[in-house]
């Protein structure tokens, strides 16, 4: 397996480690909080809506989605998965969810955090924060948790921007209103649950910090357009949770992203790449196989540099919200920007396929990729059902080929590195071919 040879073929950024540490800290803080009798929330990633509110109310928030990746990386997942299978949850369902349900079942049996749980484990939650956006799992999963715990659950309702219907007159205002109303009701829900009032000024500050944090993170990723690319996707995945899950005080996180900006910038200046010899620049679509990340080292040895990833894990494009006074409205607009910002040009050109593929086409063009690796997740519909369209559009519009490697985020039995490497070798020939084709058609790279 990939992990066995510990070759340092990818130079990891020094400034990445403190960001990754924030996420470890997130879990430790939650355990401490729960031991001190303080409230803890299990959250679905909700794009700085619910979690900024929880942070203001001093609720320690942790993310079972991220914990699924952690368990996979630490090899703890198989145990939890088989428990959820035993309890009758169909095995084709989300690996993160099955991991979490199995974990919760074991925690219920033991009456405490299961021994050997990675990152000291996820403590029993005071409340659950689900979300209506992206996939059904994101609320069905937490509803199913009722089998193992009686924590109250709020499902944060979200609008659906990014599609042509969201461009009808008045649609944007309507959607923002829904978000604001939902957030306001959620605040009332938490206030009642904790018997304390929301400090609106503090919320305002945190929201601004969150906006700033995302801006800083966005700017880091802009630097990756440099050739050779100074920052590999592995560093992106290690640094992403800090902002996506708001793992710490956003002010602190923003600072760390700025440090990362400096490091990446100086590397770009000295034309230092993330890998020794950048033969191919690739994008990666959807989540990686967390249990087999060493696989990227073997690709790096072949000169594959991964320079960008799916928009959905990137911060929203920077947006100025300073003219909006209500913090909830600022959150709503930031979230709305995340859901629609990557499609603006698609809307202008009335490319309604944009909702799926447009951001990929843009990123592959901007980052001058030779190819994209599509990683269909056998237990995740959301991360998978748009990939064929992406493959199509990249070929039609940019003559950029896709390599499909089936796998899963948690279940390592579904991923076969040997097979993937065999495919990769063949794919190099394909990338070479389309380099020529693009040159002939006068495409940029």
């Amino acid at each position, binding site marked *: 397996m990939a992990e066995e040879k510990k070759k340092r073929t990818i130079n990891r950024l020094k400034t990445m480690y403190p960001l990754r540490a924030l996420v470890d800290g997130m879990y430790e803080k939650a355990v401490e909080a729960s031991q001190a009798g303080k409230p803890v929330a299990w959250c679905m990633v909700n794009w700085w809506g619910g979690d900024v509110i929880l942070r203001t109310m001093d609720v320690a928030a942790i993310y079972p989605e991220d914990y699924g990746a952690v368990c996979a990386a630490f090899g703890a997942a198989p145990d939890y998965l088989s428990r959820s299978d035993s309890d009758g949850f169909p095995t084709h369902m989300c690996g993160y969810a099955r991991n979490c349900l199995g974990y919760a079942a074991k925690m219920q049996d033991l009456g405490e955090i299961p021994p050997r749980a990675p990152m000291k484990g996820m403590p029993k939650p005071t409340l659950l924060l689900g979300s209506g956006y992206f996939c059904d799992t994101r609320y069905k999963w937490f509803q199913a948790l009722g089998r193992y715990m009686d924590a109250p659950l709020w499902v944060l309702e979200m609008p659906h921007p990014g599609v042509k219907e969201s461009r009808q007159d008045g649609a944007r205002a309507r959607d923002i209103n829904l978000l604001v109303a939902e957030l306001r009701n959620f605040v009332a829900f938490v206030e009642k649950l904790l018997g304390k009032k929301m400090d609106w000024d503090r919320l305002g500050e945190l929201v601004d910090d969150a906006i700033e944090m995302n801006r800083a993170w966005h700017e880091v990723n802009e630097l990756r357009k440099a050739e050779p690319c100074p920052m590999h996707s592995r560093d992106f995945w290690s640094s992403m949770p800090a902002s996506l899950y708001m793992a710490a005080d956003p002010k602190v996180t923003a600072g760390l992203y700025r440090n990362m900006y400096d490091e990446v910038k100086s590397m770009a200046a000295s034309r230092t790449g993330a890998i020794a010899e950048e033969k191919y620049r690739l994008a990666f679509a959807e989540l990686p196989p967390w249990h087999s990340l060493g696989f990227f080292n073997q690709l790096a040895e072949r000169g594959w540099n991964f320079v960008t990833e799916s928009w959905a894990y990137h911060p929203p494009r920077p947006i100025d919200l300073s003219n909006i006074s209500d913090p909830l409205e600022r959150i709503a607009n930031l979230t709305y920007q995340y859901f629609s910002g990557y499609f603006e040009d698609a809307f202008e050109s009335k490319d309604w396929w944009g909702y799926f593929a447009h951001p990929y086409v843009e990123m592959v063009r901007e980052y001058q990729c030779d190819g994209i690796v599509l990683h269909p997740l056998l237990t995740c519909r959301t991360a998978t059902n748009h990939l064929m369209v992406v493959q199509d559009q990249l070929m039609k519009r940019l003559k950029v080929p896709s390599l499909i490697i*089936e796998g899963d985020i948690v279940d390592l039995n579904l991923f076969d590195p040997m097979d993937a490497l065999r*495919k990769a070798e063949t794919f190099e020939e394909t990338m070479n071919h389309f380099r020529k084709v693009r040159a002939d058609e006068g495409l940029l790279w």
Partner: protein
Amino acid sequence: MAYFMGIDIGSGTSKGVITKDGEFLAHHLVPSGINYREAAEKLRKGLLTVSGLSPQDITFTVATGQGSGNVSFSDEQATDTRCCARGIKHLFPSVRTVIDVQAQSSQVIRLNESGQVTNFAVSERCAAGSGRFLEVIANVLQIELKDFGPLSLKSSNPVTFSTGCAVFGESEAVSRVAEGIPKEDILAGVHKALANKISALTDRVGLKMDCAISGGGGLDIGLIKSIEEELGVKLLVPAQPRSVTAFGAALIAAEPKPA
């Protein structure tokens, strides 16, 4: 004159080809058995015998296939996808799509005029849509794989076979037989199911003419016919479909190597 060797260690059969100045000289097949190393050695021996050459005569050897890692005497390894594309290009320069039906899995490969792979899709990691499916059914019906095609062509109404798993397909075949359904209809059913899988794979890479078939599946007229029906095109069939990949490996062996 220069001789080059291509060794394709497949999961069922191992095939070897020797080329002389870029042209086909000799080929040889041995069952892979359960030890790829031994298979490779046997194959080389046989190859050299049939071509009347000695190991020293071989300038460069490329190994491919499932067991390519176990060919001690190879100078280089290449994926079967690349080799298959190269081989077919040499046999049929006009081919842009090749359907490679191997013992364990199927792949559809798009290639350009120089035989480079421009797109490819491999059947998912179970025996669905593979030659193995055919073997298993041949077992149930206790008939030789080679008699498969002719028999299947007799069928007037193929049974619908919508299952993936080859072994599960076996049980389906068993119960059909039990229902007294003629063998040819069952065979035609298997061929239809395979053809469906393959046409789905083909849609994923996009069919561009000309189209050829390679691998063990190229020996089965019944399969070829149903693929042709499914895709609505005529397939080019090489004389030695199973050796195409080994041939391609030998051609790659002759390609100039980057220093």
